[in-house]
């Protein structure tokens, strides 16, 4: 497993060179944006169960066959497995976001995931759809652009109330990790 720092070390070692000012600039950026990154990880972890259950619910709403007899989210045992997997994927994405490097996600989550799902008969398209909904809500939580949706009386709606700032780079990074999952399942 690597993080942003050790990734730089691995590539410098391949060139047999010390790490100079050029590479250090990106790392200094990681350090300078460190608090934003921690807030972003916190935004995901603090809302994890909401993000996961929303994504699975959304996936089922679009494809109600999943919870009918014979569907892949029927009975409860398989629905529970689905929610659990959603949480696992989101957890590894939160690790990758914390480390600033996707290696932990690749090695420990995505490696062999597609083959496992095919063997178990899990529909890859539905799984990818749930991940893309998680992407939308996670990035909204990080960027604090989340809204209460169509129901004005929604009381569970929540904002993280961190200091406002430019989080576009982090949002793009987080989105790239979700896309990584989606392409691993494609």
């Amino acid at each position: 497993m690597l993080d942003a720092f050790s990734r730089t070390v691995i590539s410098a070692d391949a060139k047999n060179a010390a790490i100079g000012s050029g590479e250090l600039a990106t790392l200094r950026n990681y350090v300078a944006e460190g608090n934003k990154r921690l807030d972003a990880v916190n935004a995901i972890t603090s809302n994890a169960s909401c993000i996961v259950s929303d994504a699975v619910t959304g996936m089922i709403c679009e494809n109600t066959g999943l919870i009918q007899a014979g569907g892949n989210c029927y009975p409860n045992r398989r629905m529970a497995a689905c929610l659990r997997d959603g949480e696992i994927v989101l957890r590894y994405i939160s690790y990758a976001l914390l480390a600033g490097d996707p290696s932990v996600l690749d090695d420990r989550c995505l490696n062999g995931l597609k083959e496992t799902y095919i063997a178990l008969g899990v529909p890859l398209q539905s799984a990818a759809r749930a991940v893309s909904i998680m992407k939308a809500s996670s990035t909204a939580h990080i960027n604090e652009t989340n809204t209460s949706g169509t129901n004005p009386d929604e009381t569970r709606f929540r904002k993280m109330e961190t200091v406002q700032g430019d989080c576009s780079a982090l949002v793009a990074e987080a989105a790239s990790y979700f896309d990584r999952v989606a392409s691993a399942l494609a």
Partner: protein
Amino acid sequence: MKSVVTTVVTAADAAGRFPSQNDLEAVQGNIQRAAARLEAAEKLANGWEKVTREAGDACFKKYPYLKQQGEAGSTQTKVDKCYRDLGHYLRLINYCLVVGGTGPLDEWGIAGAREVYRTLNLPTSAYVEALTYTRDRACSPRDMSPQALNEFKSYLDYAINSLS
């Protein structure tokens, strides 16, 4: 590779939980200290060749017998290899400063070094002398800020202890 972030993530993964407040605090602490580390890494990278040269010179000055017939530095090729090795150690220390942990030194410098030096009949005391010279020569504020120097010296000490 071992660093604060990967340690935190490994522990969280073993327990199957999301990164907790504690984990985030640990990373935050690491980030706060990072500025000094990165400064030291940059200064070392800038003066890398000169530092290597001075360290090697110091070692041959203290142990001139090394250049005698049948010793580790008897030919120019062997002497060059000594300087190259010192360069490797300093490069790995540069990596350690970047990562914020001893991972690079452990994996690429120390693991197996003792066995290799014994087989090739190389004196570790010469490396110790060279690195000790570097450690004692470095000073603040001429070379780097006090905190950066502290980080730099701690990795030099780590390498010295592993060879002693």
